[in-house]
């Protein structure tokens, strides 16, 4: 019996060892081996373009883009014989994954840099793309990231807008149209009227302003962009400031009060309210207004999700009572920028640049790009059918000013937002002036502390 147990133990150990060895070799060999397999037959069939010696490893930042990107990669490999490996980091795990992957042999050749602080971390690893073919295809440079030397280090390949999503059908039921909302005062009037008649109408004004982690970024990040944007606009800020004044925080309070006081969810239970909850409230027609971005379009209109009619939804700018805000457009920006690993081999760099160029110029590929990513700033890409993006472009074409993503300057962004959420939750549960002072402190003092942490 003892011998049998010993034998079993020994076998377990051996199996464990083999399994360990197996998985590690898989990880290191997969990049080369897996795409090569698919490449080999295709390469022999269609040797039209001379196969470059390099290969591409694309570390994808957008989970929702993964499926389409994998298909594009396979198509490209079939056409050119260049192996393209696409790996998608789990949502919220990109920086950890990128760090781990960059430390290995066979590091990613194409990766994402989200903002200026990301560029500070990865500047040494980012190729200067100023003269690249893909950069020449851009129709705007607004979303690119440039380092201190002015070199183009990351190309903004798609941009997003956020604002207040409106269910125009419900709005009409309540007796209003979009034309009734032109600034904060008119928004407030409509919202408060709908909220007061919620029982009779069967729906409320705003979806829950959840402060659970799955939802709080809509406010600590996106809504807080309003005071940051206007302050930076007044002060002419063009790089990360060491301090902020919080000059527009009263406006922030006004719009936040409007959100939490005019929804079916009591303000004291916001910390447990999730993003899915707010989305469902809007999708199921229980609320007229829902603050979110263009990326929600597919979820709201998709037949497998909420199946709202695109004709019945619209996106309007966030108004918070700032002078001249009737001329504001949506808040547009991006955290999606392509960078090419400058420490990769010359062949891999070339292969990666070729792949990116193909993505934005090939008719089929660019159509997929637009369909998946929405607004894509490249010359040869078709127009998006996303209603929110169409709305946004219409506002811009009317000559309204774009509200940029000022929050991209936020130092140590996760920590900054955590403090802000803590203070906003305390204020929502008990909306006193003293508690608002905590929000102001989280905003102004918090910024200064985080700036010191990051740069000190």
């Amino acid at each position, binding site marked *: 019996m003892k011998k049998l147990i010993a034998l079993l133990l020994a076998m377990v150990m051996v199996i464990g060892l083999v399994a360990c060895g197996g998985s590690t070799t898989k990880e290191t060999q997969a990049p080369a081996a897996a795409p090569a397999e698919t490449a080999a037959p295709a390469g022999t069939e269609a040797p039209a373009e001379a196969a470059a010696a390099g290969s591409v490893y694309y570390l994808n930042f957008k989970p929702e883009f993964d499926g389409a990107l994998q298909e594009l990669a396979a198509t490209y490999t079939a056409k050119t014989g260049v192996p393209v490996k696409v790996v998608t980091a789990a949502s919220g795990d990109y920086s950890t994954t990128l760090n781990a992957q960059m430390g290995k042999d066979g590091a990613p050749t194409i990766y994402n840099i989200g903002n200026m602080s990301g560029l500070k971390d990865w500047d040494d690893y980012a190729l200067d793309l100023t003269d690249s073919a893909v950069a020449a295809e851009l129709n705007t440079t607004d979303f690119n990231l440039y380092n201190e030397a002015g070199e183009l280090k990351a190309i903004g390949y798609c941009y997003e807008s956020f604002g207040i999503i409106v269910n125009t059908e419900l709005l009409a039921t309540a007796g209003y149209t979009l034309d009734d909302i032109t600034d904060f005062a008119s928004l407030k009037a409509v919202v408060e009227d709908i909220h007061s008649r919620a029982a009779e109408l069967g729906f409320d004004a705003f979806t829950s302003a959840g402060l659970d982690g799955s939802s709080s970024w809509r406010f600590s990040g996106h809504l807080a962009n309003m005071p940051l944007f206007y302050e930076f606009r007044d002060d002419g800020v063009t790089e990360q400031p060491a301090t902020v004044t919080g000059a527009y925080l009263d406006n922030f309070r006004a719009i936040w009060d409007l959100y939490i006081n005019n929804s079916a969810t009591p303000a004291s239970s916001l910390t447990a309210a999730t993003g899915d909850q707010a989305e469902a409230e809007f999708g199921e027609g229980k609320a007229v207004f829902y603050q979110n971005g263009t990326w929600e379009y597919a979820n709201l209109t998709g037949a497998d999700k909420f199946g709202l009619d695109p004709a019945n939804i619209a996106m309007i700018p966030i108004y918070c009572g700032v002078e001249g805000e009737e001329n504001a457009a949506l808040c547009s920006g991006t955290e999606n920028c392509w960078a090419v690993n400058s420490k990769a081999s010359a062949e891999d760099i070339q292969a990666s640049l070729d792949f990116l160029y193909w993505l934005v110029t090939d008719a089929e590929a660019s159509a997929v790009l637009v369909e998946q990513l929405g607004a894509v700033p490249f010359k040869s890409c078709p127009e998006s059918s996303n209603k929110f993006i169409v709305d946004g472009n219409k506002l811009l074409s009317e000559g309204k000013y774009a509200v940029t993503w000022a929050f991209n300057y936020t130092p140590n962004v996760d920590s900054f937002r955590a403090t802000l959420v803590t203070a906003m939750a305390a204020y929502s*549960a008990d909306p006193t002036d003293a508690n608002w002072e905590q929000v102001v402190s989280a905003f102004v003092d918090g910024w200064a502390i985080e700036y010191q942490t990051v740069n000190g």
Partner: protein
Amino acid sequence: MSKKNDGSGLNSQLIRRPIQRWAPLFLLPVFAAFCIGFVWPFIQGIYLSFCNFNVPSDATWVGLKNYSKIWTDVGFWNAFKNTAGFAVVTIVLINVISFAIAYALTQKMRGANLFRTVFFMPNLIGGVVLGYIWSMIFDGILRGYATYLTANATYGFWGLVILVCWQQIGYMMIIYIAGLQAVPEDMLEAARIDGATNSQTLFRVIIPNVMPSITTCTFLTLTNGFKLFDQNLALTGGLPSIIENGAKINKTELLALNIYSTYNINKDWHGVAQAKAVIFFLLVAVLAIAQQAATRSKEVQQ
């Protein structure tokens, strides 16, 4: 009877010598796995704590700079205090409760096996899942009092204590049951005949005899308490995050989570997080060794 193979044949020189000669070969795979999986990363980790690095392959030596940054890090010392308090509370609670349950379930009672299974089950659920589930439970309860889990540090701390107790009591209970069942029946009988009361039997006979289980369980609860990460991340994520005296503090953050969030600040903090991890390791190692020495000395030979 004497024909039974007692293994003494293995002592023969003819068999022992080849085994001894080839022993290193058989040890090699495990030794290699140990080196690859533990020794080398450990040494590299210590090295990196003296470096500034973004990815480990391009580390530059900065000496003790990372360590000096820790002394002024208010968040780290707050996490240290939280962790120490948390470890003390959970060690006491988990061990006392799980011992009491084990003691109850080793008495002759109907359905004892069912209870054991039920008490053990929470341990089968992962920490992140537990954290989210319990955050909903706590928020649901606290909503009745118009407040919420991350409103202050007290709720978060005791919420985490309840969660971890719920998760680990069943596991420790199993160890204690095994220990209690190993207490020799004749000793208990002797105590009974000598007229020992129930409490005398418990404190003078049973507990000295289950000292090995107590050693194991205190060791496990101590290290678990210090290393706690997923439950902390999922339950409160360190919130509330407060500004106090010009510094930021995540009030319910324990050490492991503090190290994790330090690493994620930016590349200049990777080395600092690594230095914290080294201090963290030393702390856990010293405490665990001290605890082992203290409880081992109380164990009795049966």
